[in-house]
Structures are given as C-alpha cells and as structure tokens.
C-alpha cells in the first residue's frame, strides 16, 4: 500500500483542513448576512444564529490550525484513484438505473466495486449477477419497494 507517511505530512493535511474550514466559516457567514426576510417575531431573526456558528467555526479552525494532530496519511496513486472510483461507480449506476433497470445497473456496480476490492473478474462478475438477482427479488417481491425495471429491455 502506498501512502504518504510521517507526522509532517499529517500536520500539513491538518493545516490544510483548518484553512478550508476557516474559508467555509467565512463563506457561510457571508451568505448568512445576506439572508432576506421581512421580519421575525423573535429579536434575533434568522441571521444571528448562523453568524454565531460562523464565528465559532472560525475560532475552532484557528485552534485546529495551531494545535494540529490526529489525521491519517492520505492514499496515493492507484489507491487514491480507486477510493474516488467507488462513489463514481455509484453515480454511474444511479444514472443508468432508469434506462438499464435496477438489475443490470446493480450488476455493473457490484462487479466494478468488487474488482476494486480485489476480486478476480470471474468472482466479481458472479458476485455481481448473484447480488443483483438477490437484491432485486428481496426488494421487489419480499419487501415491496418500488424499483425501476428498466426501459431499454422493456421489462
């Protein structure tokens, strides 16, 4: 497994995280100050609480910046690509679910993710087909959850 190691790398990612959180606090605060409303029955109104939150997050991210620690090393190369491919495959399967139908989209997802997790093509395909059939029968017929049949093959 290839990972960036060493406490120095960890401190750096903590610092980057703190900066991003600080930026989030600023953006959130700016958007909060622009909330439009005619009037509120309470003295605070809809802006104050978010502004307080923005302030607290800004403060906490400063503390985090100066007292970093506890982050894990990041994956690199293939491992990183595979990590990102997991939600990517979920997205692709969701988009294909309507035209291809639940069963085929799930076969694709299970096979793809199975490959990422180290199964051989053969095992991944078998797992894909078996899981697709199992989940489809379970949801459609036992649990009666609506799932798209797919329009390409005219189910």
């Amino acid at each position: 497994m290839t990972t960036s190691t060493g406490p120095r790398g960890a401190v750096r990612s903590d610092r980057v995280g703190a900066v991003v959180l600080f930026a989030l606090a600023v953006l959130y605060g700016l958007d909060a100050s622009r909330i439009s409303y005619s009037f509120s029955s309470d003295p605070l109104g809809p802006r104050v609480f978010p502004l307080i939150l923005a302030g607290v997050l800004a403060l906490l991210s400063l503390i985090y910046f100066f007292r970093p620690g506890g982050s894990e090393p990041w994956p690199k190369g293939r491992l990183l690509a595979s990590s990102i491919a997991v939600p990517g495959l979920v997205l692709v399967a969701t988009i294909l679910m309507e035209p291809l139908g639940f069963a085929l989209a799930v076969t694709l997802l299970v096979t793809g993710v199975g490959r990422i997790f180290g199964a051989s093509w053969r095992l991944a395909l078998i797992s894909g087909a078996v899981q697709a059939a199992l989940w489809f029968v379970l949801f459609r017929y036992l649990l009666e959850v609506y799932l798209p049949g797919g329009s390409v093959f005219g189910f």
Partner: protein
Amino acid sequence: MKKLVLQAAVFGVAGVLAGAALAAPEKTECLAGAKPGGGFDVTCRLAANSLLAAKLIDKPMPVTYMEGGVGAVAYNHVVGKRSSDPTLITAASTGSALLLAQGKFGQYDENAVRWLGALGADYGVIVVAADSPYKTMKDLVEAYKKAPNDFAIGGGGAVGSQDWMKAAIIAKSADQDPKKIRYVALEGGGAVLTALQGGHIKIGAGEASEMAKHHQAGKVRILGVMAPERLPGDLKDVPTAKEQGFDFDWVVWRGYYLGGKVSDADYQSWVDTFQKLAKSPEFAKEREERGLYPYTVIGADFDKIVKNDVKKFKTLAAEAGL
C-alpha cells in the same frame, strides 16, 4: 402489510436524461406535496379512498409524494412538467393560497393551475390552558390590550403561517401592531398543547379537529372557533368568534387542483365526478374518518374562493408588514 408504491421523481429526471419515458401511468393519480402522513396525504387519501368506495373509479388511485416547501415543489412540478396531464390531481389547502399570496411558490401564481374543488375543511381555534383565568374571547382580548407583553402566543408555524395570521388577527383586534406580537413558532399542535400546559405560552393558535379532543379531555380550553357557524361534534358548545363580537373566521379548506393546460372537457368531467362524489354516503363517512368538517365547493365557485383567498391574504400580509 399495506403496499406503498413511491413512484419517484428521480426516475422521471433520470428518464428525461436518458430520453426514456416513465412506466405506464395509472388511470388516475393524486400528488401530495408532503411526506406520507402529512396534511396533503390525508387530502389525497380522502379523494382516493372515497372515489373508489363510491365506485367512481375502477382502479385504485395511487398517491404519490413530492415533499418540499410545503407544496411548492409539487406546484412547480405540476405547472412545469405535467400541466396538461388530465389524470393527475394535486392536493392543496388554505396554506397553499397563503404561500401563493406571499410569492413563496416561486415564479408561478394562482392562475397557473385549474382549481378543481374542496371536499372538506377545518377551522381555526383560539385556545388557552385549562387553568387560564380567561373564559371568553372578550376577556382575553381586553387583558391582552392592557399588557400585550405578558402574552406569548404560540402556533405551529413560522411568521406568515396560518397560525401566525390568527395571532395577528387577535393582535389587531386588540389594537396592537402584529409585528410586535411575542409569537412563538412551535412544531405543530402537539407542541402548542405542551407549551400551554407548561405555562410557557398563554395563548395558542391551532385547528379545531386537532384541539377538539384536548378540549374534551380538559387539557386546554377553546375560547372560540373561527368558523361562520358553530361546529358539530365535540365543539358544539363552543361559541364562534363572531357570536362573541369578533368578525374573523379562518377556514382551512382541503382541496385539489389540475394542471393549467388541462382541457375544459377534462376539467368538467372531474367537476362532475366530484359533484357525484359529494352526494355519495361513502364520501361522508370517509371525510368524517379524517376529522374534517363538511365543506364542499366544486368547480368555478372553488376557483373564485381560492382567488379571493389569495387576494385577502395579500392584503393581510401587507397590513401585517410582511
């Protein structure tokens, strides 16, 4: 176990992306702009169940859910995507007219759909705790006038909601500025009840059907119903606001609309169906089971009422400074 089919918007969206159509539509459909169990669901089920019971439709009418913005998402969906679909009715209520008046339904106004009819109603009520010293609306308004800051008013909605409007009406009748009410926005009628019992608020705004059982159980006292006439059932001894000299009523009708591009013929056929439905004994039973009071207005009359409501709410909102 009851089968609950959620025909989903995502399939529609994904389908459009892929250039494919939805599965074959049922003959009729009712769209509820809320979760299962919410007010719009009750409205849809009233139509679906009673139409089937009265044998005015052959196949069950499925209820679909599209939550968001108290009906705003459903409204935009109907106007934008299914405007000419004659099989679809969508649940609406006084709250929809209120949101339309406040421009909270997005770019479309009340003329973008065809208002079909209302099949039942609920009415606003003013409640106080069971041990409150106030027995009539008059007592309450007099006391409120003297020390408005001692009276926190609670309701199940935000500023601009129906319950807030009721609170604003009370404030106005006591010559107070609605903007200065000490209004507490709570999560629904149950929370209003608890807050009254705990003494955290002194006046509650709510709806008759929900508060009637608590009134009957002696947990709260309803001082007045905001209806043109006394309500039947548990509340028959509670005077209306009008009887007590206050000219305000608050009708919460529960009705339906069709897409704006539905043809006159299709609209008329729905109107005829609803009129037949309203006369059937099955319908009366279904309506009662859902805790709604009789209120049947169909077709052009309903259209007039909705548009009047929107106009009235615009004035109210302007007066209240919304």
